[in-house]
């Protein structure tokens, strides 16, 4: 279903201009009038709060990597990792296992390294129900990126980039939006969409509680009274900043090389769709971090969330993707999940009758 009538942003307009970046700033606040929220906790230091040179306390609610994860989460259904209806027809890659090749392990929208994940590059593609012999990484390198003759270079020559962009776009446009790194091939594409989420005027709020185990089934002599503590934050302002690198999108294609205009528009439109999805609807960053939009600026102008509307279905349709849209990469389960080997302790015989064996851990 096309939403053409509700569309407010036309990607072609931004891409035809000479504007280098598009900055979108969203002011957020905890829902239902709450004053507290829970930022990301980092190992050993918990929430990160620091004093800035501008004399305020800033809390990193989510790092850029974490925001990228959130922006990918909005693309898929919660539990089975299938695409949301609006993105129907958008290509992506699946890693599958199982005798019937029907057990999903990960997708390029859930994997940290996206298309460059080990689980795609070192698995075997399934085509017409047949498992290819070559690893998918080799297929990409030789047949898609066509990086066979790098000479002494370890990374693509300028002219070879067009194949790289086209191939990544064909298999997983999401990888172009959030950046991708193939270290062995010298391919490093920066993020088109970079997002940060910070809270200003932040203050830590420590709370604690006790969980009573009144039944005490586990250990009747020691009824459970687990004491827990948690830190939350309050802040005078929570701000999400989204920066879209327009010139980078423009550089993905030139004339008949690389991405065409419709494909570049999809990259921009997909980035905008993600932002709208994240800030315009109910999205919980964490269980105690349910934030809602209170203000929006697009390119420095006060805007409404409806101003971010793009016709994503049409953009996908116009991008010229070919079937199959979803690339399946198969792994033998025992290769992917290597079971630990049992260790017989040879020569240590014990004539005990076995009664006293315990199942204690080492």
């Amino acid at each position, binding site marked *: 279903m096309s939403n053409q009538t509700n569309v407010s942003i036309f990607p072609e307009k931004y891409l035809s201009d000479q504007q280098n*970046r598009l900055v979108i700033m969203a002011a957020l606040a905890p829902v239902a009038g709450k004053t507290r929220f829970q930022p990301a906790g980092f190992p050993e230091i918990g929430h990160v709060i620091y004093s800035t040179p501008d004399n305020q306390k*800033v809390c990193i609610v989510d*790092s850029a990597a974490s925001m990228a994860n959130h922006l990918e989460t909005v693309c898929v259904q919660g539990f089975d990792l299938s695409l949301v209806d609006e993105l129907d027809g958008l290509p992506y890659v699946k890693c599958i296992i199982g005798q019937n090749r029907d057990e999903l392990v990960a997708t390029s929208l859930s994997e940290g390294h996206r298309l460059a994940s080990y689980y795609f590059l070192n698995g075997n593609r399934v085509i017409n129900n047949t498992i290819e012999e070559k690893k998918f990484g080799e297929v990409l390198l030789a047949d898609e990126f066509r990086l066979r003759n790098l000479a002494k270079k370890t990374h693509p020559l300028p002219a070879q980039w067009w194949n790289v962009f086209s191939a990544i776009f064909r298999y997983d446009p999401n990888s172009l939006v959030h950046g991708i790194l193939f270290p062995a091939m010298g391919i490093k594409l920066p993020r088109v969409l970079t997002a940060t989420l910070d809270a200003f005027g932040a203050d830590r709020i420590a709370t604690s509680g006790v969980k009573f185990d009144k039944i005490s089934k586990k250990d009747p002599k020691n009824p459970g009274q687990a004491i827990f503590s948690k830190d939350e934050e309050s802040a005078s302002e929570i701000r999400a900043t989204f920066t879209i690198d327009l010139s980078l999108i423009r550089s993905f294609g030139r004339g008949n090389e690389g991405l065409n205009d419709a494909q570049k528009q999809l990259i921009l439109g997909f980035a905008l769709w993600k932002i709208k999805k994240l800030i315009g609807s109910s999205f919980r960053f964490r269980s105690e971090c349910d934030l809602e939009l209170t203000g929006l600026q697009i390119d420095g102008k006060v805007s409404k969330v409806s101003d971010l509307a793009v016709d994503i279905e049409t953009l996908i349709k116009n991008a010229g993707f070919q079937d199959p849209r979803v690339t399946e990469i198969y792994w033998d389960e025992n290769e992917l*999940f*290597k079971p630990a080997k049992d*260790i017989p302790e040879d020569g240590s015989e014990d004539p005990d009758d076995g*009664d006293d064996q315990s199942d204690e851990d080492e």
Partner: protein
Amino acid sequence: MQQTFPVGRFHATPWRAFPFDDPYGEWPPSPWRLLRAILARSFQLSREFPKDSEEEHERLRELLVHAFCTSKISWQLPTQSWRGPGIQQYHPADFEYSHPSPRKFKVYDYREEFRDGTLDIADLGHELIKFFTIYKDKSKKDILEFFNENMELVKMEPDIAPEKVKALNDLIRKMKLTARKYKHYFPDEKSYTATKVKDNFWLTPENTSPLFWILDSDHSLWKPDLLIHLDDCLARMTYFGRAESITYIERIHENLDIVANCFLRDSRTTVAVPVLCPKANATLEDVGCMTNEKKVANSTIPPGAVWKYAERPLITKNKKPQRPSKKLLPTTVLQFAIGGRVFPPLKLWLRVTERFRGTILQKIAQNQTGNQKAQFYELSSDIRENYSLLTGKGENGVRLTGHRHAAFFLIPDEEVKPTRLICYRKKPFTSEEQMAILSASEVPLAWDYRGNQWKLRLVPLSKETPLPYEKDIFGESRLWETLVPYVPPLHVFRQNGKPKPGAEVENQVKSNLENLNLPQAEISLLDESSNSVQWMKVHRPRRERRWQTNDDKRGYRIRLNFIVPTKGPVFIGNSSHFGLGLFAPVPVDGSTQLKGNV
């Protein structure tokens, strides 16, 4: 070039530094990093232009590298910038089973003889079973497990009957089976393993104070077409360092007054930090190298680069802006009502006034430094001197003379409880001092060393709040009596208990009155029946507390009969600025003496 970081952070780790053990952080930003970032955007720019401009862009890149590398680089760094805490994060690394710790157990070979029904496995393909084990689990239930030749569990019988356990153990003994020890890993759920990474960053002022790159170059190298190319590349730099460092960077055209405060040196000093720079003769190929190329991966420094050293400018931290406070009119008197569950005995009244003044000085120190843990004695001597009329100590800690500094009096009520506190000074308190006093009054006051359970609370009263006539220490009268006992400054008795000539109480009072230029007075000690003598705590300055152990002194009740009516307050003797030796006018029909509460 002017550079800002809108999010206020520059995320980067210096070349080859281990992020978890990066001693310096990357500040100033490395010229090597900047040049590579510009080149990356130059290649991107080429892709945006028609194909026939590629050759021209390649030429410009060569020129750019030469012009940049031969420039002398310095910075004007914002002085209000410092290293952030750095954040550690777990990134998913591999899929695998999250194995719990292995279970150690013993297995026995499974024999053909067992197929007689002793081990009830009729429902299993016998040929699968190669090993078995029997053991008690944590809840003391007997468990029997069977394994195939790969030690994979094929059957488990939980909670087997005791008779079966006994039969089985008998069988094991009879057949002299020996147990083999095994560590067995049971596969658990499949999940990601994670690796911990660290993201170091430097905090920068958001927009107020940019960072300036100053390139001192041969002017002829930066031709107009190269400058245009540079501008185009800078305009495309969305971030610098890690993706978290959103940045704006541009060449400045207007003639701003920019003075470098950070310079590169070839040699190291004790406070300099290493900065990776391109060599003057670095080539485009050098600078464009990939980090995983062999020649780079196996070297301590990339080709065409050199370590130089820079001394960062001193950090200046902004004092927190003080909230504009109401200007209070000068006043000589501030009054507080005192509330509490348990009031101190007369002997310990001084503890209240002493601690209250201490809290006032602490508040002043906090206001001066913006540090909530600051102490007054930590302030520089010239700042402390500004408050000599509160502390009673002038230059170099010398005591002020002439009763000029602030005094703190406790006024008792009918039940002889100290329910009012008065701050008095001949020279009116300034607005700042009053704010400190009012701020101190919000802090509960403990008067006992044994714990803080008995705290007094102060409530400010308007300065016009009257005192009862018989306790109006600011009144006027010829006849005055001690409201709080007088402690002579000198010992009245020798160590042998005999009076010290010249140090009699009357003489000392007379001397005190003369020092204060008060009129002559007839001095008399009130008789024993009205508790004329009682032990009182006196103030011991911090510097004397180490060697003086006894702060209990004799306090005396005194009557003064001046030759002319005299205006109060009259307070004399030891610790008189903490409320001892305070006098009140005697009503015509009575006395102000404190009774009881000894």
